[in-house]
């Protein structure tokens, strides 16, 4: 069976600096997979290579067995590859509802319409409302994103990505900068995601990683160090040395 998302010998160099070195990676259908690694390991670069924000120097990216290496970011989204951003990348001066509705409209293909008012597209509004309800912030729909507490902005990020109904979802540090109390709510929202959706999470919060992921890949200096179950990774002395050792003595 094809992997939901796969890379083959993916490389990225900026001049002499190698930020991704022959990464072979498989994300199985329905996976709950985490990508961890110390700062500067190239995690975000890897995500940008997967989503098409960066073009690789060599290697391939395959989505459900189809080579998407040459597709731009928007076309990859159309094929079912969604993402959230490490730093909130929201439409700051729009309402929470509009933030989600824009994505829903793109997915169902009405976003290019220039005659019927957007507000009369009930199908878009209803679905956006349902998504907000599913992450628990339906009450905030009418508010401007700017005025929202940071933790709730993170939930908007997730709701936008879900509106694209991705087959593969990349979560780039969904709990970054969120106080631990609120990160609990993010974990709750993540736990409710459809099981058939393959999810790759990049996260620094080890507690969240070990609770959420069934598999973990460790990236160090642009290379895959090892991959395994949380128990295997937790016990691996190499991982302890390069990464966990810094935090969990």
């Amino acid at each position, binding site marked *: 069976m094809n992997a939901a998302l796969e890379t083959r010998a993916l490389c990225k160099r900026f001049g002499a600096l190698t930020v991704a070195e022959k990464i072979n990676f498989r994300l199985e259908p329905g996976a709950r997979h985490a990508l961890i690694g110390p700062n500067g390991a190239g995690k975000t670069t890897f995500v940008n290579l997967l989503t098409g*924000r960066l073009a690789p120097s060599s290697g391939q990216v395959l989505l459900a067995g189809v080579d998407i290496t040459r597709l731009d970011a928007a076309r990859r989204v159309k094929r079912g590859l969604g993402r959230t951003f490490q730093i909130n990348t929201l439409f700051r001066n729009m*309402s929470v509802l509009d933030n989600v509705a824009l994505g829903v409209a793109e997915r169902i293909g009405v976003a290019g319409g220039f005659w019927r008012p957007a507000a009369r597209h009930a199908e878009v509004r209803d679905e956006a409302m349902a998504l907000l309800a599913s992450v628990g912030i339906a009450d905030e729909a009418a508010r401007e994103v700017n005025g929202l507490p940071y933790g709730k902005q993170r939930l908007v990020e997730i709701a936008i990505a879900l509106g694209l109904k991705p087959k593969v979802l990349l979560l780039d540090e969904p709990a970054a900068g969120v106080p631990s109390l609120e990160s609990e709510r993010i974990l709750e929202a993540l736990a409710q995601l459809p099981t058939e959706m393959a999810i790759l999470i990049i996260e620094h919060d080890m507690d969240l990683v070990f609770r959420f992921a069934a598999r973990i890949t460790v990236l160090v200096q642009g290379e895959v160090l090892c991959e395994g179950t949380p128990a295997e990774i937790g016990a691996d002395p190499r991982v302890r040395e390069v990464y966990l050792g810094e935090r969990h003595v």
Partner: protein
Amino acid sequence: MKHPVGYSAKPGLRATEYLPWVVALAAFFVLPDYLALGARILTYILFALSLDLIVGYAGIVTLGHAAFFGSGAYIAGVLSAKLGVNDPMLQLAAAGAGAGLLGLATGAVILRTRALAQLMLTLAIAALCLEVANKANSITGGADGLSGVTIAPILGLFKFDLYGKTAYLWCLASLLIGWWLVRRLVYSPFGASLTGIRDNSVRMQAIGAPVYLRLLLVYTFSALLAGVAGALLTQANQFVGLNVLGFEPSGELLVMLILGGVGRMYGAFVGPIVYLIAQDYLAKQFPEYWYFGIGLMLVLVVLFARGGLLGIVDAALARLRRKA
């Protein structure tokens, strides 16, 4: 009066939105001596509206929008003076199509860049158009301008009269249609996605939006509208000069829009009205330094009212509401 657009907006017409049309009709009856100025203002409103669409809503920066206004103006002029095509509707259609094509061709290049590079490219394109019109003497009349423009009666019924009555109403009707199209577009999903691109184009790509294509579409439409506005000016003046092309009218238009308020649709109405009336008045009263008055007005607006004159109105209304 800045209302949200998109999925949260109320798209129905508000009472205040009838105001410009009531004022325009009233002016027609009350100020018969100022119809020439009135027609000029109406064409500039349409021109400013086309600029607001790309600058205010889509976030494209340009100092060369007169390229489209001017080419529309020259297309109408040349059609009449050189080719004998005097039908005003045909002229508008040709001017819109011509300017729209120019927008499509130049937009395909400039929209691949952003910020300063984009600004420089628009400036270069406007300068090129100006030089072409300047050198193509035999067609455009060069620096002397193009005279001998005659306009046939509209639908064969309404003659362009000496007092500018027909021209005024013709411009008003064209503006009404242009405004209606812009308004539909702004409130549509397409308009909402433009606002999204302006706010955050990276995120728009990440939700699967064809950003470049959307920008190209709106740029082309904006160029088309500007071209129609230019043709209207030719028809109202029955003359075209080089002053419709190049950096100066582009910059002047941007000043009008900033004065009125960017990205709020009706800023494009208020700006040209205030600017052109002030220009008309100041040029008569203080012919030597009328630009000083315009400059002062702009400095005050930029310093104290970032939302333009309409922004001031907004703030005042909000204050009244709080007191009440």
